[in-house]
């Protein structure tokens, strides 16, 4: 862990460290800190129940939502149980099942993103990691209910995007969102994993850069010293931002919502 001086502007590589900080609020903290109620729903109805990606009915400030999100543990034991927030295909398929249920019941989806990436394992490949993510991307584009995404920690590539195609994409100030980890990019393009700080800079993975690029809609400001220094305050800031957008999206008629969602993603990179 590198020492971080919050009185200065953080470098992208420092922000990566903050985004991965073990004390950063995890989905279990958000459930506890911003939901009046949470009814967890398990299983993909085909293979199993992924502990790295959880979801269920939740009530937040009186608003009923389908909450889904990656789960990072707070201890080594929890992290092993939750596979460090790296989901398998059954996790993405469970998430899709819950999204479709939200659509059926007419409740919005709230997706909290915090993962190093989709799990790169033999079994994950055998069960179709690529197909599971691809299916979700295709279905989320057409899901007939409001969809709010918050990148809360690490937005790790396809594993993050697999639950993150929404009408509004919010991002916490010290979260990161990238096509590849800085270490991975450095080892390929710089041929040296130690050049990760350079790669982090070049990849433009901070909330500030992503807002400029039009990839995210709004930055949720974190407390002084980042979310881990005052989790309660950080969770409240997320709750406030989420409620504002949920209320606004619920007023938009569904056809308009879907057209805007399509236009939003069609414009990416233009």
């Amino acid at each position, binding site marked *: 862990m590198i020492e971080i001086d919050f009185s200065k502007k953080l470098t992208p590589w420092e922000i990566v460290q903050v985004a991965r900080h073990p004390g950063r609020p995890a989905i279990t903290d958000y459930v506890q800190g911003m939901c009046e109620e949470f009814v967890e729903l398990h299983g993909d109805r085909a293979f199993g129940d992924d502990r790295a990606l959880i979801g269920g009915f939740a009530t937040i400030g009186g608003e009923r939502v389908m909450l889904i999100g990656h789960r990072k543990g707070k201890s080594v034991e929890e992290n092993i149980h939750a596979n460090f927030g790296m989901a398998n295909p059954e996790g993405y398929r469970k998430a899709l099942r819950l999204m479709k249920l939200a659509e059926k019941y007419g409740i919005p989806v709230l997706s909290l993103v915090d993962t190093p990436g*989709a*799990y*790169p*394992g*033999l079994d*994950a*490949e*055998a*069960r*179709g*990691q*690529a*197909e599971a*993510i*691809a*299916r979700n*991307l*295709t*279905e*989320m*584009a*057409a899901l007939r209910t409001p969809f709010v995404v918050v990148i809360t920690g690490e937005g790790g*590539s*396809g594993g993050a*995007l*697999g639950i993150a*195609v929404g009408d509004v994409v919010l991002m916490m100030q010290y979260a990161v*969102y*990238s*096509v*590849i980890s800085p270490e991975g*990019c450095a080892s*390929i*393009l*710089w*041929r*040296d994993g130690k*050049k990760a700080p*350079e*790669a982090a800079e*070049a*990849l*433009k*993975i901070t909330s500030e850069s*992503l807002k400029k*690029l039009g*990839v995210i809609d709004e930055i949720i400001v974190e407390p002084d010293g980042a979310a881990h220094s005052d989790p309660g305050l950080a969770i409240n800031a997320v709750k406030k931002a989420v409620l504002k957008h949920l209320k606004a999206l619920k007023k938009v008629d569904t056809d308009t919502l879907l057209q805007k*969602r*399509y236009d939003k*993603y*069609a414009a*990416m*990179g*233009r």
Partner: protein
Amino acid sequence: MGWFTNPAAKTASTPTEAIWAICPACKAYVPQAEWNNDLRVCPRCDYHDRLTCRQRVAQICDSGSFSEINATVSVRDPLKFADASGAYADKAQAAVKKTGEGEAILTGTALIDGIPVVIGVMDFRFLGGSLASGTGERILLAAEAALQQRRPLILFSASGGARMHEGIISLMQMAKTCAAISRLQQARIPYLSVLTDPTTGGVSASYAMVGDINIAEPKALIGFAGRRVIEQTIKQQLPDDFQTAEYLLEHGFVDHIVHRGAMKSFLAQVLRYASHR
């Protein structure tokens, strides 16, 4: 014509690249003319060599029927990216010069056995067939053309995945292209995906894997995570056929493995069902 498989015959001649093709898989010497006439498939081991997008179009589309669309959509550099070996903008221009193509996918309208289609063919020579903003835009516009003209869409993938040099914008192309595919589904426009060697990473995890029908070429490498990454993560040996077309077929993710020589007729056969309405 089996004599060239005889090692003695190899030493008897001094093959040059102009006359001989060397199979990348089994190292057999094959006369260049035969290699090309055989669709760049090795007559000895059946290895399917990578094709340029124009070679593929020539094999699949009715003669003279292909008409390129989206040619003006070219490479962009949204991050102004540079790494240790230089600026992305320069590498992209070098790829354009090398291939004569504007991006890693060639799109157009064409006929396949007389059936009108919109077709997109990726070219691995162009920065590893990587998916980036220009690639995604061409795919989205091709899908929109298919929707407007009510023609089936066929995409041939050949890609290492998302292009790192465009960072998050490349990742967003996965969502963008899938949004376009989703519209075809809703409008009941057929979409056939053909996975060729290699189809990995962000391309396998987006449009390539959600065809109405997924078709693969024999022995093509198809997968999400890289073999080395998986081996480092799980610390165990992977099966030899791991992430091959045959492995994907066995696990239920492709409908059919089709030999290159039969690809056009197979596509036409399926399209006669898909375009029936």
